[in-house]
Every structure is written in structure tokens, then in C-alpha cells.
């Protein structure tokens, strides 16, 4: 019996096979590329030079443009916080200052404190990476608190670099705690982790605080952009809200 084979059948068979092989190859290549794309790689990190993360965030978020975010710098009691800008520093005898900052700029402060009976001066920097959306009229009553603890100052005085990322907690995953203005909960991450990324997983990063031990020279401070810093808007301190107390009419003093 002759081996009959249709010419149409043979013509159709080869391209179909080639097409199937090409499809499988494409799917494999795409899967590999997809796996590479899903790696945990983030564009920004806290090791970037001060101000870069803020500038990148400003370019990616139109709501940051032109917005002045109130920030409250809270240093340990007994220290003095001054603003470094415009070739000089402001006079200050207070350990807390409330300022308005804009994204894309770097702000620097001078903290005078006493570490183990030794007067020291550090120049921490703060940059804003996101903003708050407070109800109208209450923006200044809810600034972003940047708390500088005694441990932060001690670490920086010892020659170490302290990078602290302040983030907004998610309301649903917060742990109840006693509120204190001078005590902001924080935890350390290892050198292999980036605090900006860790804060992004836990909430919304708002500000990056960097404290090093380097003291600028007189020439650096005297420049118009002293130590790469901008001048923030000085704001009044938030008003302490009176806790609502119910008092019987008979309890009122006469």
C-alpha cells in the first residue's frame, strides 16, 4: 500500500510546530524577565546624599509642590535647637522648634547640648519626603514630630552616623501606647536594611533625620547656602488642647 501523504498536511505541519516552539520560548523568556522585575529593588534609599530623596519625591508627587509642611523638632530637655540658614544661625534657648519645610530642600539645625559634662554641638539635617493632609485650619496643630533622643546625640557624638526615618503609622496596625511628646517610639535596623524601606513597609515615611559628628568650617557656615541648608518658616508652637472634662454643675466652684 503506497504511503500517501497529503501535501497540504506536510505544509501545515512544519509551521505549526515552529510556532509552538517559538511560543514556548517567548513564554519562558517573559517569565524570566518577570522574575527579575519582581525583585525588591527600590530607587530611593537613605544612603543617598541629603536632599536627594526629597527632590525625587517632589518630582513624583504633585501634591508636595508648594506645600509647606509643619515639622516640630524636639530635642532633649536642656539642649538648644537653632536654625542654620542664610550664613548664620538663629538665637535659641529652646529645645523645641516648629518650622515649615518644603519638599525638595534640605534643612539643617544646630543642637547645643551637654554630653557627659562636655558641651557639644551637632548639625543634624532634615528633609521632607511626604506630607500630611490635615483638615483645613489644623495643619499647624499637627506637625510632623522629629524627635531627637539623647541616645541619638550620644551615638553621633561618638563618631557614628545616625539616620532616622519618621513615618506615619497605619491606624489599624498600631499598638496602644501612652502618648508622650518627647518619646517617639523607634527601633534600630541593621546595616543590611534601609530604614527608609523598612518605614515604607510599616507606614508612610515623612521625614529623614541625619545626625553626623562632622562640624562645618566657618567658611561653610558663612556661605549663602550655609552647609547646604535652606531657611524654613518659623511657626508658632501647637496649642495644647484642653482635655474635655465633664464637670457637674454642682462641682463648679462658687
Amino acid at each position, binding site marked *: 500500500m503506497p504511503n500517501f501523504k497529503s501535501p497540504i498536511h506536510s505544509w501545515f505541519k512544519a509551521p505549526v510546530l515552529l510556532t509552538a516552539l517559538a511560543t514556548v520560548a517567548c513564554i519562558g523568556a517573559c517569565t524570566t524577565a518577570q522574575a527579575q522585575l519582581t525583585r525588591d529593588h527600590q530607587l530611593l534609599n537613605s544612603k543617598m*546624599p541629603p*536632599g*536627594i530623596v526629597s527632590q525625587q519625591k517632589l518630582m513624583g508627587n504633585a501634591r508636595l509642590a508648594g506645600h*509647606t509642611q509643619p515639622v516640630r523638632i524636639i530635642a532633649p530637655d536642656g539642649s538648644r535647637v537653632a536654625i542654620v*540658614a542664610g550664613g548664620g544661625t538663629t538665637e535659641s534657648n529652646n529645645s523645641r522648634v516648629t518650622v515649615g519645610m*518644603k519638599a525638595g*530642600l*534640605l534643612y539643617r539645625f544646630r543642637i547645643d547640648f551637654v554630653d557627659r559634662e562636655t558641651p557639644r554641638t551637632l548639625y543634624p539635617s532634615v528633609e521632607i519626603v511626604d506630607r*500630611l*493632609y*490635615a*483638615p*483645613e485650619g489644623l495643619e*499647624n496643630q*499637627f506637625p510632623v514630630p522629629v524627635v531627637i533622643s539623647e541616645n541619638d546625640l550620644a551615638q553621633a557624638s561618638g*563618631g*557614628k*552616623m*545616625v539616620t*532616622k*526615618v*519618621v*513615618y*506615619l*503609622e497605619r*491606624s*489599624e496596625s*498600631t499598638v*496602644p*501606647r*501612652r*502618648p508622650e511628646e518627647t518619646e*517617639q*517610639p523607634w*527601633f*534600630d*535596623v*541593621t546595616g543590611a*536594611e534601609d*530604614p527608609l524601606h*523598612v518605614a515604607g513597609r*510599616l*507606614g508612610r515615611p*515623612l521625614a529623614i533625620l541625619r545626625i553626623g*559628628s562632622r562640624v562645618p568650617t566657618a567658611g561653610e557656615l558663612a556661605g*549663602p*547656602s550655609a552647609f*547646604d541648608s*535652606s*531657611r*524654613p*518658616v518659623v511657626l*508658632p508652637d501647637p*496649642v495644647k488642647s*484642653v*482635655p*474635655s472634662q465633664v*464637670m457637674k*454643675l454642682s462641682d*463648679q466652684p462658687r
Partner: protein
Amino acid sequence: MIQFAKNVAMIKTNFATRCIAIPLALATGIFASSTAAAQQAEAQSRPAVIQLRTLPTPDAKTMPAVPADTATQKNQFKLTVAQEEFFQSASARMASASQDTSSAVYLDFLSDGDPSHGFAERTGFAFRDGELENKIDNGVFPVPLGRHLRQKDPRYRHNKKRLTRSDEYVYDGSDREARVQVDGDWNIYGMDSEDTFGHFDTLDGKRLVSPSNRVDIYAPRFSAVRRVDNMQNAKYSSQVTQFKRKEGTVLSRASDFSASTKQNVALDTNETTLKAVGFRDQTRGVLTDNVLQLRGSRESFHPYENFDLIRWGKHSISETTRLEAGMQAANVWQDNLGLQAFGKKVQPIIVNDTVSLQQIVTVETDDDNAILRVTKVASKIAARPGEEVEFTIRFDNLSPRKIGNVTLIDNLTNRLQYVAGTAECSIDAKFIHTDNDSSSLTLRWEIDKPVPAGKGGVIRFKCRVR
């Protein structure tokens, strides 16, 4: 027994549709057209100050007993002996009055003299996981009725995608996520954190649930993540070398921060210190706030409760703006502006404006369906951790019939801590609080007596933001 209840309901339905069309229309008209007039008259007769009673803190003895095993009976609605007698007498009276179409007979049948007659007895309660199956046939189905009828889907979760959420706010109220349902054995299903609702019984054997509106309080909370780099350990790295030679500093800052020209521009923009002038005005307001000293007005309405809706149970359009305080901040968070849900049908109408922070849920009805309106307001729209916020819940029976076993429940979120001893209620109620899964409390008010048509009450309590 259940079949008997169904028969009674069917008899009553025929009775209502065929024989007492006029009374029903009158009953509808009483509510639909003269609600304002009735409430106005009621407002005139009602004192301006509601005497709120401080409820005692419960102890273990007053806690209701939880049924040991309700798996076999949880889907059934139990009739008490009194309720059975009531239905028997009611059916007999309906049979004798079937030819009488006067409204007096119909309303007399509804009231029946005894205020506690016709409702099941409270036997305790329990919180169950999961969802209750659809119990419309059993007469146990959830509210809002209007939403169900409008969506035509009993599984519709009304606010799962409606209300926007922000990580800067603390929310309390409404029926979040899973739909709250209560079965015949007082088991509560689908109660999530933040849920605030009321459930009640009707004379025709239904147990309904009415969620409240949502209250939003701006209360951001902050934490920090720190990393300490030891420069001594890394001094052999290239970065440290550049740092010592100041090459790294020159390279990075001279190049990247040549944008320092922008910083000069920023100095100009900081001429917006004009805003500081405005802050002085705000400081003046604070001084005025300190002078007020009106916080001693216990047993009366507080300034934040000064709404007709809270005082008289009547919503005025002119107060919508005040209730929507903080709306602009919410607009930042959502793209879909405007009225989120609007519907109008024969059945109860619910206009749900979810744009505002103080969500307004307006309920109207033009028939005799039982509806419990639960309205919630807070004393502050923003609070820092540690501050106290006072909540006020106003509940009203908007139906022409009395409703019984009215129970108000507020499942507090983890950011709110109930201040002990601050629960108050304008009418007799039993206050119970139990621990919940959010490390906070579930507050429960069990109203002792049935709530007559058009009547309601006010509940107050305080929470500390944490």
C-alpha cells in the same frame, strides 16, 4: 410555632392590603407627610434639655449568659409565650375587625396596651465569626432595607468600597466590611472593628439591624526607624576615604547641590511668612476657647451636639455644612467627588453622602416599614493621642409602630479607649462592655422598654485617643 408566625404575618399582610388600605395610607401619610409637623409638635412639647443618666459599670453578675450551644437553633426565631398569646389575640381581633377599615382599629392592634407585649425576651448575646446565611424567609434580615432593595442583592456590602480611608484618621461607626447580622438567639455575626449599629425587633417578628454613620477623627500617630552606621568600622571603604579627603563631599554636593540656586529661590518663597500673621488670629481664638469654660454643662446638650438631628431627631439641610466639617481634607484623598450614592424608590430611601468626613445618612420612608435611625457625632474632628473625645449617638424609631429590644452596639477600634464611667443614656438602659479583638471594648446598651413610634434617645460616652 414558626409556621403560626408566618400565618399571622400572611393574615396581616392580606389584612393590610385588602381591608385597611385607608388606614395604611393614613399611617403612611402620618409619617411621610407629617413627620416634620409631628416632630415640630413634639419639639414644642419636649424639654430642651434631655436628662442623661449615668449608667452603672457592669460587673460579672450583670453580664448576660451566653447560650451554650446555639448551633441547632440559631436560625430560628423563638416566640415567647407572651408573644404567642399576642399573635393569637391579634389574629382574632383582625378577624373580627376585617370589615372595619378605620385607622383606630389598626393602630390599636399595633399598640395593644402593654408596652412590652409582642417582643421576644433577651436571653443573652454572643459574637460569632463569619456571616449569617440570608434569613429573609425567617424574618431575620439585615438593614439597610433601602440598599437591599435598591441593589437587589442581599449579599451587597454597602460600604466596603464606598467610604475612603486614610492612615491619618481614626474611624468609628458605620458597618464596615462584613455585614452585621443578628439571629434569633441574639448571636451577632459580621461585627468588625469600628462598627456601630443598633438592632431591634418588630411586632411582626423581624429582627433588624441599622448601622450608624461613620465619624472620622483626624489623629495621626508617628514612629521612627533608626540605623546607626559606625564610621570607624567602615573607614577602609572608599566612601570614608573620600570623606577624609573631602572629595566625596565636593563631588556630591558640588554637583547635586548646584541646585542650591533653587534654594535661593526657596528663600524668596519663604516670604510667605505672612501666614504667621494669620497664626496670631488663631492664637486669639485659643484664648477665647480658654475663656469659655462652658464644659460644666452636664445633663444638657454640648456645643458639638447642637444639631436639630441630635436635639429633635430632625435633620435640617442648613446644618449639612457643619456636619461636613473637614470635607476639603477628605477630597484630597479621593478622586470621585460628589454624591456617592443616591436612590429613591417606594421603599425607604437612603441618601448616603460619603464625601464628607462627618458622613450623613439620611433615611426617609413613605410606608410602614420599621426603621431605626442611628446617628453618631463626635465632639472633635481632630485629636492628639491622649486627648478625650466624646461621642453622642442619637437613635430614633422612624416607623409608625413601636419597636422592641432596641440594642445599640459600638465596637471600638484599637485607637480608642473607653473612659470608664462616662456612659450615659437618656432613657432606661442596661450598659454592658466586653473586650474585643482590637484590644479595646465593645459597648452595648440594651434599652429596657420598647421605643414608641417617632421616639428615640441619646447616648453619650467618652473615649481617649491612644
